[in-house]
C-alpha cells in the first residue's frame, strides 16, 4: 500500500482482529449508531463502575474503517471516567472536522492510523459512528 493509503497496518489489524467485539447482553446501556447510506450499523455497550467506563464493547457490521474505528474506540475509552470519555469524543469530532487540524491533534496515540482517513470526507461518518454511539451511552447533556 502506498503512503497515502487509508489502509494502514494498524487499521487493518483492528479490522481483522477487532478488540472488544461481541455480546452486549450484559451491558448496562447499549446505544446504536447507523448509517443507512452505506449500511453501517453498530451497537456500543458500556458497563459502568460508578463514574468509570469499566467495560466498552461493540457489535455490528460495517466497512473496515467503521469497524476498526469502533475497535480502537473501545481500547481508548475503557477505564476512563465518563467526563474524560465525553471529552475524547469531542476531541475526535474536532480532529475530523476542524479546519487546520493535523495528525498531532489526535486525541490519543493509538488512533494515529486514522489520520490517513481524515482527508476523505466521505469516510468521516464511518469513523465517527461508534464514537457518537458511545457519546449517547454516556448520557451527558
Amino acid at each position, binding site marked *: 500500500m502506498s503512503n497515502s493509503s487509508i489502509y494502514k497496518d494498524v487499521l487493518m489489524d483492528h479490522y481483522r482482529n477487532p478488540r472488544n467485539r461481541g455480546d452486549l447482553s450484559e451491558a448496562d446501556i447499549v446505544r446504536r449508531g447507523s448509517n443507512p447510506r452505506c*449500511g453501517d450499523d453498530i451497537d456500543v455497550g458500556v458497563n459502568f463502575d460508578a463514574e468509570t467506563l469499566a467495560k466498552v464493547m461493540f457489535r455490528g457490521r460495517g466497512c473496515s474503517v467503521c469497524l476498526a474505528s469502533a475497535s480502537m474506540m473501545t481500547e481508548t475509552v475503557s477505564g476512563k471516567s465518563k467526563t474524560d470519555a465525553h471529552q475524547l469524543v469531542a476531541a475526535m469530532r474536532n480532529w475530523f472536522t476542524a479546519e487546520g487540524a493535523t495528525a498531532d491533534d489526535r486525541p490519543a496515540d493509538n488512533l494515529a492510523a486514522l489520520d490517513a482517513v481524515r482527508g476523505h470526507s466521505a469516510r468521516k461518518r464511518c469513523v465517527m459512528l461508534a464514537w457518537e454511539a458511545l457519546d449517547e451511552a454516556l448520557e451527558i447533556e
Partner: protein
Amino acid sequence: MKIKPFDVFDSAPVLADVPLLAAAGESLHYLDNAATTQKPNAVIDAISDCYRQHNAPVHRGLYDLAENASQLYETARRTLAKFIGAASDQLIFTRSATESINMVAQGWLRPRLNKGDQIWLTRMEHHANYLPWQALCRDNGARLRIIELNQDGTLDLENCTGLYDASTKLIALTQVSNVLGVINPLKEICAKAAGQGIAVMIDAAQSVGHMPVDVTELDCDFLVFSAHKMFGPNGIGALYGKAERLNQMEPLLLGGGMVDHVSQCDSIWMPYPTKFEAGSQNLADALGFAAAVNWIRQHDMHAMHAHVTELTQYALDSLAKLNNVEIYGPRDAEQRAGIVSFNLTDVHPHDVGQIAGERGVAIRAGHHCCQPLMQQLGIAATARASFAPYNNRNDVDALIESLHAAQALMG
C-alpha cells in the same frame, strides 16, 4: 442493437478529445460515468466562447449582441429537440432531470390527482423519480404502486395487476436503471398506457446521448434528461412534454420572461416553452448542452453505443471470473446500458471503492440513490462501474486488478 462481431471503435481519439482524461493518462481509469461524464473540448469551448463572445440577455435585448444570444439559445433548443425527435418548442430547459420531474409532479399531476388514484413506478427508480411521487401520493391520498423486478433485474410486467386501470393517472419509469443497467421495454408500456389514456413519464437521464431515444417513436407524455450525464455541463437539464400536457401544466417558477400580461390581480402566462423558463436563461450551459449533442453526433452515437456494449460484456465476463463476486442485473450486455453493479463477498462496497480509488480506478460505491431497490436486493450498497466511449479494455483490466487487490487486503 446487435453487437458488432468485434469492436472496431477506436476510443483513443475520443479520449484525446477529453482534456481531463487526456492529462491524467494511465493514472486515472474513470468508470463513474453513470454519476457524471467527463467533458470534451467542444463542450468546454462552447461555454468559454459564450462568455468570451456571445454573452448577453436572452429574449430581452434589441441590440445585435442580444439578438444573437437569443438566436444561439433557440438554436441550442432546436438541436436538443431534434436529437430526441421532438418539436423545438416542446423542449424546455431546466436545471436538471430532477427539476424536470418535480415540475411534472407539481405542475401537471398535482391538480389532477385524486384520492384513490394510482401512480405506478418501478422498483429500480432513482430517488429523483421516487420521492416527488411518494410525496404527491401522501398529500393527495393516492396510492403509490410498484412494478417489481424479475430475478435478472428486468421488469416483472406479468404481475402488476391494475397497472393499466382507469385509476392509474401516471406511470413514471426509467429507461435505463442506474444500478442494474437494465434497459426497460418502454414502447410496450407507452402503447398500452396510451390505449387507456394513462400518461407516461420517462426518466431518460441514463439513456439520452448513450443510445437512440426518440419521443415520437416512444409516444411518451413526458421525458426528462440532464446534460452532465451526456458529456454536457452541470446545472442544466431538459423536459420534453406532449403539446397537450404542456398546455395543461402550470409553471412552478413565476417571474421575469414567462408572463404575457400582468395586471394588479391577475396575469396571463406566455405559451410553452417560455412559461416554464422564468428568470434569465442559462445561455452558456444551453450552448454547452447543444455542443455535447453535436459532439456525440460527430463521433457516431451508434458506434459509441456498440463500443460501450462490447466493453460492458467484457466487464461482465471478467467480473464473473472472479471468486466470491455477485453481479446484479442481466448477464447479457445487449439487455443493458454500460452500467454494472456488483459486490465482493465480505468486502464492504465502500472499501472496494476506496481501494479501487487508491489504484486510480474511479468507481461508485453506495446505494446510488436507489434505497427501495437496495431493500429489495437485501443489501445496503453496491460497487458500480459505468462506461463511456472514451473507456477501453485497459480500464476494465485495471478495475479487475483493483478488485483482486481488495480481496487480497480484506480477505
